[in-house]
């Protein structure tokens, strides 16, 4: 079953909700189209996060972004986790939910990291089946985010974008496209980011993540989210201008997202792909 398209406007611009934001946020209520929360920060029954969430959800749409689904783990999906996720999505009436195309734990342990898999045909069906199941359980669009990665495997039989596209296509779910991750991985693995973007069906892009990254002395790029958005990967950004050139492929909502104010919202404006949010 293919879920309904997202409810956010096509040019909706959101921010990642993080604890350091609360002070300013609760005082100024900036002009933004939505906030994205890390699902796991609100799945527990702790009172303070729930209180803050209630204040924010009264004023903004909230979308969920998870890091703990473990979609590609050996173990079956954690049904207790999924129940909580469904509850949270319902609680905030999330326009959509996303998590990563990765594994996060195995052998009963959680690594609290987004770990890559070999991109092989025999994983596509499993990943797609699970993603479709999650989307059905959620009853709303479910997006899969591409990773930043630091290692590749000899056992991969296709490029990441082919694997990613096949999973999203078979699952009937959505791309949650992180352009920073494409750029980071392209530099770490030596591929052209344009090749990646050419493979993406933009009519199935639910949201775009924009963030910064760090440079290691050995040339590796690390997806840290603690640096300003780099202009160097601006060409990766699927701007409206570019989208117009592919109008067939960009008919659905594609909201942009910045993980933190330090990521320079004006960057998006300079790119002509979104208005600048009013963050005082």
């Amino acid at each position, binding site marked *: 079953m293919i879920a309904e398209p997202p409810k956010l406007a096509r040019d909706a611009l959101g921010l990642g909700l993080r604890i350091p934001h609360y002070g300013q946020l609760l005082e100024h209520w900036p002009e933004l189209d939505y906030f994205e929360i890390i699902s796991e920060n609100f*799945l527990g029954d702790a*009172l303070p996060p729930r209180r803050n969430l209630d204040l924010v959800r009264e004023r903004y749409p909230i979308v969920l972004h998870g890091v*703990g689904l473990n979609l590609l783990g050996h173990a079956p999906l954690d049904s207790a986790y999924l129940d909580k996720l469904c509850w949270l999505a319902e609680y905030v009436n999330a326009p959509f939910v996303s998590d990563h195309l990765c594994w996060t734990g*195995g052998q009963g342990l959680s690594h*609290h990291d987004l770990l890559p898999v070999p991109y092989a045909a025999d994983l596509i069906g499993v990943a797609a089946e699970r993603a479709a199941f999650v989307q059905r359980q959620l009853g709303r669009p479910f997006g899969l985010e591409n990773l930043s990665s*630091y*290692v590749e495997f000899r056992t991969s039989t296709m490029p990441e974008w082919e694997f990613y596209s096949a999973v999203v296509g078979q699952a009937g779910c959505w791309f949650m496209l992180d352009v920073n991750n494409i750029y980071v991985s392209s530099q770490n693995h*030596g591929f052209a980011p344009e090749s990646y973007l050419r493979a993406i069906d933009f009519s199935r892009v639910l949201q775009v993540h924009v963030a910064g990254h760090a440079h290691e002395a*050995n040339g590796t790029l690390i997806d840290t989210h603690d640096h300003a958005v780099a202009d160097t990967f601006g060409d990766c950004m699927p701007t409206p201008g570019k989208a117009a050139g592919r109008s067939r492929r960009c008919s659905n909502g594609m909201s942009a997202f910045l993980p933190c104010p330090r990521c320079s919202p004006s960057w998006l404006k300079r790119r002509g792909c979104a208005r600048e949010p009013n963050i005082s």
Partner: protein
Amino acid sequence: MVRTPLQRASGVLEVAPQAYDQELMRVALANPQLSSAERLAIYNRQYWFRLFTVFHRAFPLTTRLLSHFTFNAYVSRFLLAEPPRDWNVDSALVGFDDFLLEVLPAELVPIAGQRLGVARLAVVQAARIDAAFHRVFLAPAVEPFHPGAQHASQLLSSRLVASPSVAVLEEHWPLCELRRTIAGEVSEAAVALPEGLLKPRFWLLLRAGTKLNLLALEPREAQLWGLLRQLSVGAALERLEQDCPAEQRAGLPESTQRWLARSVTLGAWTGLETTPSTAVRQD
């Protein structure tokens, strides 16, 4: 199904692996800058520093008493013994204060790069204080218990159930004050342990709304809080009286009434556990 765990034998990510297993090395590719082992090591590093950061945030006082370097060494020992198993990264913190109690040296805890160590008891108390702050802050919302006339007949034989948003802290050094002072500091160096207090000090840590407050407790009042958490109300009062020096006993009933009333007003209890007092721990 094809997967490549980073450490296939145990699933645990080692601190600094000497060598990855052969199968993993066979499938992980090098790039022009880094060998396959160096690329895999990025994940090990991320794993450890993500978790270290979680522990630094939850145990800020303990971290600074020990210095980041020494603290991290204890965290890695703990996590190798008790690796995270849950999607909730906060669950990785559970039991760390007990672990320190078990593994810290008998008297002085050595600090990397320093001639003198820090008193074991100070580290243990700091860890208990940090753990309590973390636990109380993230406690769920609960309805406070207000005993009424209908509870009178069973009150003495029942145990009061403590609210998760309240904790009693004990300090032999001004640790809570130190915790507040270092809150805004960005430093990885060990902070000096202040002079010890002349007498142990007790605090009630409680969450009001989403704010944490500390209220000073008299030593006898702190003892009552501790006893009420373990024993039936009747047994707790009896023990309190037994432990009270004869010269203070005259004023004890009035003080006890006041302390009990205050605990109820502060929302310290969530209900009554009507277990017969004989079944409640008497230690």
